[in-house]
């Protein structure tokens, strides 16, 4: 089976603007809630699948361009959630997750950190995109 490089094959678009050129790390998390269903009749712990939830951890080199995209929403979180598009893989074998922004579906930035650890180095940023609702997968 072919392997896929991360370069040029991962992207996040937030509120209609691609963050790809501002990212050097991302972590997509799809977590399913666990519903405990163990009873006295059980011979082992039993669980059922609950609701799914999604989030994406992102980070990279900080710039004014990046900050202009995210800063307003980090200080004044939006009432209408933002459209978020996340894709993995090359065009020929790509999976794309799309949350179209509304009052119940979409994303917001639940954590945003700008850090200058070393005066001889660069400013970096990291963030968490918390996602509400289910994506359209294409």
């Amino acid at each position, binding site marked *: 089976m072919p392997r896929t490089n991360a370069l040029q094959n991962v992207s996040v678009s937030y509120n209609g603007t691609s963050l790809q050129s501002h990212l050097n790390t991302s972590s997509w998390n799809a977590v399913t809630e666990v519903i405990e269903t163990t009873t006295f009749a059980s011979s082992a712990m039993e669980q059922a699948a609950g609701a799914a939830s999604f989030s994406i951890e992102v980070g990279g080199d900080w710039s004014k361009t990046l900050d202009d995209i995210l*800063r*307003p929403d980090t200080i004044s*979180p939006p009432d209408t959630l933002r459209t978020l598009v996340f894709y993995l893989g090359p065009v020929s074998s790509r999976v794309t997750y799309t949350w179209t922004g509304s009052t119940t579906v979409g994303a917001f930035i639940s954590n945003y950190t700008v850090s*200058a650890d070393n005066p001889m180095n660069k400013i970096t940023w990291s963030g968490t995109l918390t996602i509400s609702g289910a994506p359209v997968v294409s």
Partner: protein
Amino acid sequence: MATRANRGRLLIDRYDFSLDTFAATWTTTVEPLESANWQSTTMQYQPDAVDASLTMTGYYTGYDAGDIYREIYARRNTDTTAYVAWLLDTSALGQPVYLLQTGWASSITVDTPVQSLLRFDATFDGVPYGGYTLLDGQRTATGNGTVVTLPATGTSGGRAFLLVRAITGAATNAEVHIECDTVVGMTTPTDIGTITFSAVGAYPLAIAGTVEPYVRIVVDDLGGATNFTAALILCVNGVTM
């Protein structure tokens, strides 16, 4: 393109502690509020209000008035709150600034390693603002400042902060104002607010209404002073924050 960390400036009220600071971290946190309902197939969330902090690391340089450690320590556990600003890139005007209004030092940690310099970490909490620099440096004469371009027009006002850190001579009612326009040439500028000062310190200004995308500071009167050194930070609702 990456931004160098050594272009930053840390301002606390009237003080510029850039030369005694070597690290900073700005953090905003928004708690996700669960909002799923009986028809939800996946978890749903709404954002709560933002919580912000600025953590900086500085060198211990002494305990005289005006020394970084003393001034930060004085802003811990006090009702006299501070304005704390991180100018991220002082290489040009119009660069981002993060500012805490009513900031106070929530923690101070002094590191005392055997084989290193004395340094300390301090964290400020407060109400966050994000804006651009319209002024960062010395003004020796009246007149127009550099035109800065905002990403868009603001329609719901904002706030400006003038942090005056030095005055040469005596200033009495020195005055600056901020103006905006729809064209970079500033042919028909609109005055959106005036700040008057006679001493070093922090001066906030509430701004109402429309803020057009081309903005600048205008020094109207030095108030008799030879010059003053200050930073002016413009924060526009829905545009820079």
